[in-house]
C-alpha cells in the first residue's frame, strides 16, 4: 500500500471523504484484496484505540469560578496597595525638589574630596570582571576565552526546563517543516528518539 492509499483509507475511516470518493474507495476495496487487508488492519487499530469515558470531576465549574474570584481579588489588592503610594501633587513636587537638592549637594561635596576618600568602584559581579580585578598584572586573556566566559554567563542553565521550553516556544514558534511540525517539535522528537529510541 502506498502513502496516498494509506491517507485515503484513513480519510475514509475519519469520515473525511465525500459520497463520490467514498463510493470510489469502497469499490477499490472490493476489487483489491491487498488494499482490503490494509483497511481491516487500519480499522482494527482505530477500534482498539479506545478509552473510557471519564466523568466530569464534581465541582469543576465552581473551582474555576473560585480561582477567577481569587485572581480578581488579588489584582484589586495590588491596585489598593499601589494607591497608598500615590501622593497628592504638592507632595510629589516637594519630594522631587528634595531629591534634586540632595543630588546637587552630593556633587559639590564629591568634587572637594581627596581621591582616596571617593567611593570605591562597585564590586565585580561577573566572572570576566572578577578576573580583571583580581589579576591585574596577568597577561590579557585571549579574546576567545573572554568570549567563552561571556557566553556561559548568558546561556541559561541546562537544568532550567522552563527557560529551555520558553526559548524553543518563543524563538521558533510558527516555523513549520515539510510535515508541518514546528521546529520545537522536531527538536523534541529528536531528543526523545535519542533518549528512548522512539520512532516517529
Amino acid at each position: 500500500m502506498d502513502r496516498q492509499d494509506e491517507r485515503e483509507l484513513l480519510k475514509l475511516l475519519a469520515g473525511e471523504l465525500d459520497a463520490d470518493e467514498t463510493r470510489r474507495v469502497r469499490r477499490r476495496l472490493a476489487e483489491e484484496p491487498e488494499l482490503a487487508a490494509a483497511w481491516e488492519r487500519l480499522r482494527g487499530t482505530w477500534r482498539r484505540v479506545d478509552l473510557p469515558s471519564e466523568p466530569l470531576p464534581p465541582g469543576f465549574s465552581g473551582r474555576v469560578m473560585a480561582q477567577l474570584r481569587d485572581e480578581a481579588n488579588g489584582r484589586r489588592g495590588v491596585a489598593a496597595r499601589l494607591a497608598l503610594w500615590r501622593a497628592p501633587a504638592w507632595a510629589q513636587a516637594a519630594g522631587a525638589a528634595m531629591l534634586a537638592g540632595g543630588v546637587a549637594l552630593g556633587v559639590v561635596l564629591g568634587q572637594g574630596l581627596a581621591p582616596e576618600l571617593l567611593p570605591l568602584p562597585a564590586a565585580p559581579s561577573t566572572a570576566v570582571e572578577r578576573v580583571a580585578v583580581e589579576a591585574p598584572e596577568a597577561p590579557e586573556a585571549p579574546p576567545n576565552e573572554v568570549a567563552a566566559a561571556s557566553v556561559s554567563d548568558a546561556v541559561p542553565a541546562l537544568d532550567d526546563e522552563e527557560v529551555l521550553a520558553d526559548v524553543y516556544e518563543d524563538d521558533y514558534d510558527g516555523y513549520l517543516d515539510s510535515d508541518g511540525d514546528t521546529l520545537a517539535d522536531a527538536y523534541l522528537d529528536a531528543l526523545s528518539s535519542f533518549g528512548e529510541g522512539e520512532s516517529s
Partner: protein
Amino acid sequence: MATGVEESAPPAVEEDEDRAVLERVADGDAEAFALLVERHQERLVRVCTRMLGDREEARDAAQEAFLKAFRGAADYRPRGKVYTWLYRIAVNHCLNKLRRRRIVRFLSLSGPAEGTGGDEAPAFDPATDAPGPDDALESRQRWQRARRAIAGLPPNQRAVLVLARFEGLAYKEIAEVLGITLGAVESRLVRAMRNLSAAMEDDAAKENGA
C-alpha cells in the same frame, strides 16, 4: 465526522449562542463566563485527560485553559468557532506540559519505566459497565493497552489523534485548533496510526510472551 467518537461538533445555533456569551465574557461578565464554563467544561476536561493521561493534571490544565480564555476573550476574533478556539487554548496548554515533561525526562537521563510508552502518567481505573468480571477485566486491559500506546506518541501526533479519534473533529477543524495545514494533519494522523499499530503489536507480543 470520525466514527466511534463521544461527541461531535455543536450545531450552528449553539455556536451563535457561544459567540454572544463570549462577547459578554470579553466585557468582564463573570456570569457569562460561568455559562461558558458550564457549556464547554466536559469537552475541555476530556481533551486534557486524553492528552495528559492524568486526571488531576488534566483538571488543572482545563481550569487554567478556561482562565486563559477569560483573560483572552477580548482578543478573540470570530474567524473560527468558539469551541475550536477553546480547544486550541487547552491543547496548546497540554502540549506545553508534555514538552516540559519530555525535557525534564531527557535532562534527568532516565528513560521511561519498562512497559510504558513514555509520557504516561499514573493510570486511572474507571468503572466499567461490562456485564461480568471477565468482561470488565478485558475492558480494563484494552484501555491500558490503548493508554500506553497513546502515551508513546510524540505530543504533536497525540494531539491530532485525540482530536480526530475521540473529539470527532474534522481535519479542517483540527488544522484550525493546532494552527497547521491540512496536509500536516493528514501526515501526523498517518504517522500516529503507524506508531499506534506498532506499539499495540509489541504490547500484545509481550503479553503473549509473558
